[in-house]
């Protein structure tokens, strides 16, 4: 793969993601004001000292956006990584073992997927105490059902191939087969799936925060910032739209990269090239 073969759309996506990551990592150095400092009047217009204006409590919107990138990306990323680890280990185990274990895991997964994710999350979060790690765990477990389904389908495809058969006959254990035979051959579609799940995690987290059930104030987070500033909309103040646009931009960027990865995978497999 060389850099020239990457289409422009994917470049836009990569640059957008990189920008957000930079903001997230170097937040304290980039942000002009502190995350929780009240520095001005309520809902001051953009311009002057405050590039994006101030929010509903008079905090600098730009600084909160930069810190918010940190929270949003961190939580979404951790949730995605956990959900992937969980979903992939279980799905590969199901595919390799087969039989009763496979049936049990698959049917339980069907059951989990029979309830829409958001509704499930609402029901569960209504009971659990509000902690960051609980939120991450709930997101991860709910998301891992999707990973499980795809992981199992992909792994089943590979598990019947000759080289896996050969490894079995050689006497390799299940762990070897999972990590040395199946995983390397499923990496490409799963990588695209990872991006997709990450974009979904960002949107899901933002939705939860917007509903007041995600990240709790005063920590800055993009979904929560929309919720904080939503009352300004009626007065024509667009402060709520800035974090909303950021969420949308990041999700679009991730999707652009995923789109390219998917096309690449399907063109590697041949076919008539209908992308």
């Amino acid at each position, binding site marked *: 793969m060389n850099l020239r073969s990457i289409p422009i759309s994917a470049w836009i996506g990569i640059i957008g993601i990189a920008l957000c990551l930079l903001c997230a990592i170097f937040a304290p150095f980039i942000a002009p004001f502190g995350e929780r400092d009240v520095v001005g009047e309520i809902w001051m217009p953009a311009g002057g000292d405050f590039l994006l204006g101030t929010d509903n409590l008079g905090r600098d919107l730009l600084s909160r956006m930069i810190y918010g990138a940190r929270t949003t990306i961190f939580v979404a990323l951790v949730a995605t990584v956990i959900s992937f680890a969980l979903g992939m280990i279980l799905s590969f185990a199901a595919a390799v073992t087969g039989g009763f274990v496979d049936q049990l895991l698959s049917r339980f997964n069907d059951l989990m997927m*029979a309830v*829409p994710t958001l509704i499930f999350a609402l029901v569960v979060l*209504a009971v659990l105490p509000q902690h960051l790690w609980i939120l991450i765990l709930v997101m991860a477990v709910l998301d891992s059902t999707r990973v499980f389904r795809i992981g199992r389908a992909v792994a089943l495809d590979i598990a019947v191939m000759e080289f896996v058969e050969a490894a079995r006959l050689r006497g390799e254990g299940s762990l070897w087969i999972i990590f040395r035979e199946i995983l390397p051959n499923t990496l490409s*579609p799963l990588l695209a799936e990872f991006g*997709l799940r990450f974009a979904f995690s960002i949107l899901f987290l933002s939705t939860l925060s917007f509903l007041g059930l995600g990240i709790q104030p005063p920590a800055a987070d993009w979904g929560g910032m*929309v919720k904080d500033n939503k009352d300004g*909309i009626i007065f024509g103040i*667009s402060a709520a739209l800035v974090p909303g646009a950021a969420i949308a931009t990041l999700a*679009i960027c991730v999707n652009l990269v995923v789109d390219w990865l998917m096309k690449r995978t399907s063109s590697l497999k041949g076919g008539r090239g209908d992308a």
Partner: protein
Amino acid sequence: MESGPITGPVPTDGVAGETLPRSADLSGVPAKPNPAAASGAIGGAFWRRFVFRRPLVALILQRLGLSVGLLFAVSLMIFGGIEALPGDFATTYLGQSATPQAVENIRKDLGLDRPWSERYLTWLGGAVKGDFGTSWASKNSVSEQIGKRLGNSLFLAFFAALISVPLAVGLGMLAVQFRNRLPDKIINVISLAAISLPEFFIGYLLILFFAVQLGVATFPATVYDSMTLTERLSAIALPVATLVLVVLAHMMRMTRAAILNVMSSAYVETAELKGLGTFRIIARHAAPNAVAPVINVIALNLAYLVVGVVVVEVVFVYPGMGQYMVDAVTVRDMPVVQACGLIFAAFYIFLNMAADILAILANPRLRHPR
């Protein structure tokens, strides 16, 4: 979008990952429980004869049974799973500083001192009859509230579906017709962007533009009983537009993928090589095979629509089920949360089942699972 079953998800899965429990169907992998196994479980000579004589009816009955069973399992999960989770209702409800006596009192008050299996059976028995108990927060009947709000939510979802379904299918076909040319690329880019937009962002954008700046739409989309139909329709214009935008892109991309999947199959290629005209290929060879996946796509997205109303209702302060549920979750009003959760899940499950059955009706090949 892709031809092999390996890549599984249609890359449109951005926002609405949840509508895709069966996205694998599009790429030809039989998803969902294996009907053969289920029929074995039911067993019996009479059933076997029935299956032999009326295979289609038997298959549909089987799906119905499966869905009802699934719904019971879900109700068990919504109720029992919550019991198993750490955290005590009474303590979380009263806060950390509550005295043990107060906690004890409220537990007795809410009936939490009875064993959970007993409470589950009472709850389920009530739920089947349409009685969901009383709310902890307001002490009102939950069913009464839901009765009012469910109608509002369905009203919203119905009009969103009415607009989005024909539009999505039409645009999807347009994209296939101009595949890899300018209109397709434009549709592709716009729909990719639309998929990535959170519902609330679209909602507030529409509010700011149409309600605040142009003043042509009403913002808090409140509806009440004394409103006439036209008043109602103008009140829900913006929420419906938001829902349509959210669902449209997703549905369109899936439609396009489903039709393309058919168009790239060997028999269409053969028809092309035989020298048949485009119209004839589409009408005689592609369309009958594309109907099933497209119907599937529509049903799946309607299921998503039912869930999508939650956020949209909160944005527009619309008195529907979604808002009721979110409010209940913030004050931890469990009877309301459980009732709403069960109803949403029921709609989701039965729309998915409808997708299954319609696909079977439209595509005879699915009637003979291998």
